[in-house]
Structures are given as C-alpha cells and as structure tokens.
C-alpha cells in the first residue's frame, strides 16, 4: 500500500542512531576505543571490502546458511507432512521432538567438535538444528489445520487421497510453510554466527572473533552491522517471494509471517 512512506518511517531510527554516533564521536563523549568513530569504521570497511576479505567471510557464511537451510528443509518438510497427514504416527515422535526442541543448538558444539572435528559438517549441523523446528512446526500446523470442509469438497468430486493432498492440503498449508521458512532463515543466521564464533577459520562470526583478539572494535562493528543488513536483505527477498507464491493473501495482511 503506502510502502515507500513506511520504508521512510522505518529509516528514522537508524538515521537518529547514526547521527548520535557521529555527534558523540565528534564531541568525544566517549572513549574512541570503546565506540570507534564512524570515519574509522568506514575506513576499515573500505579496506576489508577492497581487499576482498569481507566478501570472502560473507560468502562463506551465506553458503553455510544456504546449505544448512536446504538440508533442514529436506528433513523437516517431509516429516511434518507425514505427521500432519497421519496423525497416529505423531505419538511415536512427540516426546523426542519436544525434548530436542528445547536444546539450544550451540549447547551441542562440544559434542559436535568431538565427533566431527572443526570442519564444515558441525557448522552445517548447527544451522540444520536451528532451522529444523520452525520449518517443521509451521508445516505441521499448516497441514494439520487444513480445513476439512475443503477436503470434503475434493472428495465429493471424486479426487483420490493423493490428488487431495496435492490440490488441497499442500496449497492450503503453503502460507504456514512460508512462515516457517522465513523464521527458519532468521534462526539459521543467528545460530551460524554463533557456531563460527567458536570454531571456524572464516565466516562473519569468525571475523568478529578475530577482530576481538586483534583489538579491532571497528571490525567488530562492521561484522555486527553486516549480519543485520544481510538478514534484512534475505528477509526482504523472501517476503517478495511469499507475496508471489501466496497472491490470495496479498492485501489481506501485507506483513504476513513477520514477527
């Protein structure tokens, strides 16, 4: 609707914070080691952008999120569909899934390192663990809450079970699935950076940790801002995709699944 105006409104707070940062540094309201001035951060940003190290770290992280996210989807989606369609099966899975849901992925890092070393695999597993549940639960909710009256319509037209799944249950649960995917993406970013903080030699999380050890708060700030900006960009992309895939919801609630 009034998207441009709302985008503008959304930029007020970042602008005020930016100005406060500028002014505070200019008038030396704080120690420049604790909060380095914008110019210094900009110079560092320019330096690591031009030597390609920022791009390298970023690409590594994006790649890990992408692979982990896809793997989580391939695990969570079929299982959720299965349990949603055959609710009798869920008795076998309920307790296990409920217990696993409460374990923060980062808590498993020591074991993952012990079992799989510090290569790519444990980091991807962290992403998968963090992404699995939002996708799983939202898909399950979508499939299980599909309106039985619509299924009945399909039955009255003589559709088979398989056709009913493809033509009624799947599209009916699509909005929920998309919510799960968006939440999952956010979760995978957070978990990944956490994983990279502990055991990695590249990636944005590693970059931040490395900067800490080199006493470079400017690089830490760049790392933090990069995570925020990347997350927002990916989410926007996903939001556009959602609008495309779920045209019948457009206008009903434009910020579908944000939260």
């Amino acid at each position: 609707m009034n998207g441009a105006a709302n985008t503008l409104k959304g930029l007020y707070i970042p602008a005020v914070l930016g100005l406060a940062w500028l002014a505070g540094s200019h008038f030396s309201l704080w120690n420049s080691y604790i909060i380095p001035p914008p110019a210094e951060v900009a110079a560092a940003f320019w330096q690591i952008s031009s030597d390609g190290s920022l791009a390298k770290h970023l690409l590594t992280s994006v790649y890990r999120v992408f692979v982990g996210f896809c793997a989580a989807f391939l695990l969570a989606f079929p299982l959720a569909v299965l349990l949603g369609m055959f609710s009798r099966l869920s008795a076998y899975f309920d307790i296990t899934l409920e217990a696993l849901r409460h374990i923060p992925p980062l808590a498993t890092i020591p074991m993952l390192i012990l079992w799989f070393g510090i290569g790519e695999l444990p980091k991807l597993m962290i992403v998968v663990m963090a992404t699995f549940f939002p996708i799983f639960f939202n898909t399950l909710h979508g499939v299980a809450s599909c309106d039985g009256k619509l299924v009945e319509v399909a039955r009255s037209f003589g559709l088979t079970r398989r056709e009913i799944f493809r033509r009624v249950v799947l599209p009916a649960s699509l909005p929920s699935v998309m919510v799960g995917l968006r939440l999952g993406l956010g979760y995978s970013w957070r978990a990944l950076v956490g994983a990279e903080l502990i055991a990695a030699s590249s990636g944005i999380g590693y970059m931040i940790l490395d900067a800490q050890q080199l006493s470079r708060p400017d690089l830490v700030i760049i790392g933090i801002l990069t995570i925020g900006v990347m997350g927002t960009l990916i989410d926007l992309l996903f939001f556009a995709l959602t609008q495309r895939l779920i045209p019948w919801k457009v206008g009903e609630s434009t910020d579908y699944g944000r939260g």
Partner: protein
Amino acid sequence: MNRPIMAGVKLTQLSKQYQVAGQPLEAVDNVTTTIEPGSFTVIVGRSGCGKTTLLRLLSGLEQKSAGSIEWLGDGSGGADVKVGVVFQEPRLMPWLTVYENMAFALDKQPDRTLVDRQVTGTLEQLGLTGFRDAYPSQLSGGMAQRVSLGRTLCYDPDLILMDEPFGALDYFTRKKLQRELVDLFLSQHKTIVFVTHDVTEAVFLGQKVLVMEAGQIVREVPIDNPYPRQATDPSLLARQQEILAALEN
C-alpha cells in the same frame, strides 16, 4: 458416452445410525422414497431432523448403516452416476481464482479448450464474467455461493445435491438465487435434490417436497404449479400450510 444425462435414485429402507454419547441415534431411519430423473425434489425439516445426513448418504460422504441406494439412469442402468454437491458454505479454495475454482473438478479433462468453453459459459450464465480473476476473499457471500454452484455445474453431474445453499444469504440475494436456480433447472434438465428448513423456499422451488421429522419422511407433498412461480400464489400458500401442519404434529 453412454452415461445418463439425468439420474434419479431409489432409496429403500435406508438408515444411518450414529453413536452420540454412547447412545445410538437414528439420524436417518428407514427412509423409502424415489427421486425421479430430471425432477426437482426439496427435503424440508427442522435442524437435526436428518435431512443433511440423508443428503450426505446420497453424496457418498457418509456410509449407510442399512438399506439400499439404487441409481436410476436415463439408459445406462444407473451405473457410474456423477453426483455433485453444493454445500451450505461456498467452500471455495482461497488460493484459486473464481475461474480456477470453477474448473477445480475438471482437472482430469485433457481437452483444455473444452474446459475453457465450459467454465467461460458457466461464468456467463451465472453473471460472474467480471469476477473471473478475483479471489474468493474478494467476493460477497452471494457471489461466492454462485461460484460454488458454478463449480458443481462445471463438473456436469447427473444429480445435484444442495444442502441449504442459500441459508446464509440475505433475503434479496436469496430470492434472486432461487429464481436463478429455477431458470437453471429449466434450461439444464438436471435432477436436483435441495435441502432447506425454509418452507417458503421449499414450495417455491420443489416439484415434490419431502417433509422429514426425526429421521423419517413423514409426508410427501407434490407441487405441480408450473415455473416460474409467484411466492404469493394462494395454491402455494396452501401447500405451505400443509407442510407446516405436517411439521408441527
């Protein structure tokens, strides 16, 4: 194609029993009647009298407990009768446009130009051409129910079952759709079984009104007034009194 164009149905001692709180409940109790091919039959009764259950037995959405349902065809001996249902709510797929909803039951038809002709024709017939690409959430209740009727018409059933399809609509929309349904019946020669609790609607639409009470048909009232009917016609009002009297016994 040796399918019947119209189908009737003969019910013999048809029963449906439910367990409600551990007690058996005869929702449909020993119903025997015949619905002639090409006829317009209305089943009337108060809530819980079993009329919807009877309709669901005919549609195959419920399994009978006892008795028989025998299809009467126009030539094929009643084999493979296509039954279409119009529900009380429109029950449209929210992710499909009006056009796609109408074509919902035609997915297996390989000739898409045939499908297009069928859907476009039905859209026109129901005055929905301008709403072709709208989504159900953008439609009024009356329009949505038209689409629902159109979806069933596109399916081209031999028998149309309608479960209080106009019950949730406002007075004016309901009157309009009743008239349109009569026109459709006259032009398409479909067998229609229509369930309602509205006695006025029953005598306006039906050639035969089956009065149901506690799972049984307590009275069959034939109405041979020609279409289109006037709701104020004294002979219709007399029929209406007769039905009300049967219901109040």
